[in-house]
């Protein structure tokens, strides 16, 4: 009886530690098993030659050494750079559309949601829609460029020189919509008094945008940056649907090449695939580190 009583009081005394612990337990457990531990496992697997079923052979850094001489890896890495650089265009494009739509006319709410609409579509559907849009000879894109006398040999997606850009353009469509909605919400919160003050000071055009509006949109810009960079490095669905890495492997990116090596008919090289994934992860880690650092700065400022 006495022990039961002291047990209860122990629970009571430590409830401020126990409660958060119990509340965190299921979520942390799940996240550990499916996300955190697999990251470590991937690092480990990348040191082995393994077909996913049989015995794994330890090969040390051999997979990484092989990567350095792999032409397909080089192309993928280079394409990732293109994705990153061009995907960022979604941010100014989104801002531009947001500024354009930031008015009050009848039906503007509906217009805004229709502009946003591509973001809700799955990348699979976006990929299909754009691959039909790009069809050689009969696709709308080919017809319109044809009016201006431009003819891409084999169609945008059939030509190794243009295919990656065609896919990135398809990806920019929903991503721009996303950035637009971020900025539209941000613009709602812009302080009208500051704009008025800016006008009185004679700020116009770009100066107004740069000195008065953009500083107030900083939180929106930060989120737009985060989601766009993550989106660029995660690009997989569009490539898989639109070109499946072709023509001649010219549209592969690291995420797609990894999948190809580890799981598709090109062989089940789990170790080699994991090595590619590790490289992608390390690239991402630079950005994740930066994001966490700036969130940490905010946290410190907001400490109560």
């Amino acid at each position, binding site marked *: 009886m006495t022990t039961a009583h002291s047990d209860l009081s122990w629970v009571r005394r430590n409830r401020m530690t126990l409660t958060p612990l119990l509340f965190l337990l299921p979520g942390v457990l799940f996240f550990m098993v499916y996300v955190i531990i697999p990251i470590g496992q991937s690092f480990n697997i990348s040191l082995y030659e393994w077909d996913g079923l049989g015995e794994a052979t330890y090969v040390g850094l051999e997979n990484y050494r092989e990567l350095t001489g792999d032409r397909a890896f080089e192309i993928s890495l280079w394409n990732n750079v293109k994705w990153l650089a061009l995907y960022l265009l979604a941010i100014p494009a989104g801002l531009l559309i947001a500024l354009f739509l930031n008015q009050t006319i009848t039906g503007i709410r509906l217009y805004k949601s229709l502009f946003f609409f591509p973001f809700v579509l799955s990348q699979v559907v976006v990929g299909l829609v754009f691959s039909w849009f790009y069809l050689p000879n009969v696709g709308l894109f080919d017809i319109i460029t044809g009016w201006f006398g431009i003819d891409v040999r084999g169609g945008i997606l059939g030509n190794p020189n243009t295919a990656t850009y065609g896919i990135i353009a398809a990806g920019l469509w929903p991503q721009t919509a996303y950035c637009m909605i971020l900025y539209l*919400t941000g613009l709602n919160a812009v302080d009208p008094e500051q704009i008025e003050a800016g006008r009185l000071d004679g700020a116009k055009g770009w100066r107004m945008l740069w000195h008065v509006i953009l500083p107030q949109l900083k939180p929106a810009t930060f989120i737009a940056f985060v989601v766009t960079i993550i989106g660029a490095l995660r690009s997989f669905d569009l490539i898989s649907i639109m070109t499946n890495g072709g023509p001649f492997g010219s549209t592969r990116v690291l995420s797609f090449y990894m999948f190809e090596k580890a799981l598709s008919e090109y062989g089940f090289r789990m170790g080699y695939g994991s090595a590619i994934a590790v490289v992608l992860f390390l690239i991402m880690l630079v950005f994740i580190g930066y994001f966490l650092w700036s969130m940490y700065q905010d946290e410190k400022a907001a400490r109560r």
Partner: protein
Amino acid sequence: MFPTPIEKRSRGAQITYQALVPFALIMWLLPLLAVALFSMRPLADFTNGNYWGVPSSFEFFTNYGKVFFESDMPRYMLNSVLITVPTVIGAVALSCMTGFALGIYRFRGNLLIFFMFIAGNFVPFQILMVPVRDLTVSAGLYDTKLGLVLFHIAFQTGFCTLFMRNFIRALPYELIEAARVEGVAEWRIFWYVVLPLMKPAIAALSVLIFTFIWNDYFWAIVLTQGPDAQPVTAGITSFNSQFVAQYHLMSAGSIVAALPPVAMFFLMQRHFIAGLTLGAVK
């Protein structure tokens, strides 16, 4: 370059603007309008090369009827529902708890755990692919909806925790302190004080996660195969190989596959945007 409110501009500028917006919208949605047009054409139009002219007949019902009654599409759709809905419930439930723990209590490692969730949420899927697939296979859950649901719940908990924790942080802390002074047990504070205040966050997250999971393609092809468990994003590729080059059916199929999240968005717009723009406005 903050545009002057249009109502303060000249009449001419107003009319130009009102004409410009619908035009811009049509250009913006052009690829989609093309697909919508494709999905109403008869097959004969494509074989005759009439891709863009007036449809020779209006085959909306025939085409969509075929998608619903002569393909595996309904099965894939059902799979998607059975994957998406449990994931939404699971991830939101778990993150209400983690968000509560991280948002209300101060303890060592709080920020560390929080940042672990955020960082994990950003990692590329490929770094998880081989181990997660392996785990799913050895648990006997490969090519089952449950296998996919469990992974999705775990992964989405990262983003949901970020969301919930920040939301709870913004609640008035005095409420909780007052409840503690009254001697209310901690779990009761969660259930009766905090949870009712979290309704808007729960709504926003549910809509958002619904869309994310419905639109997932990568994990669908990594963890499932065939019409028993595959969701519609993965199913659409087999659908397309069944009706290869029959653009009218492929377009109708994609539109059907895209519809549920689109409907969700238009019905729950306010929540959806509140969820997406979390933190975009301080």
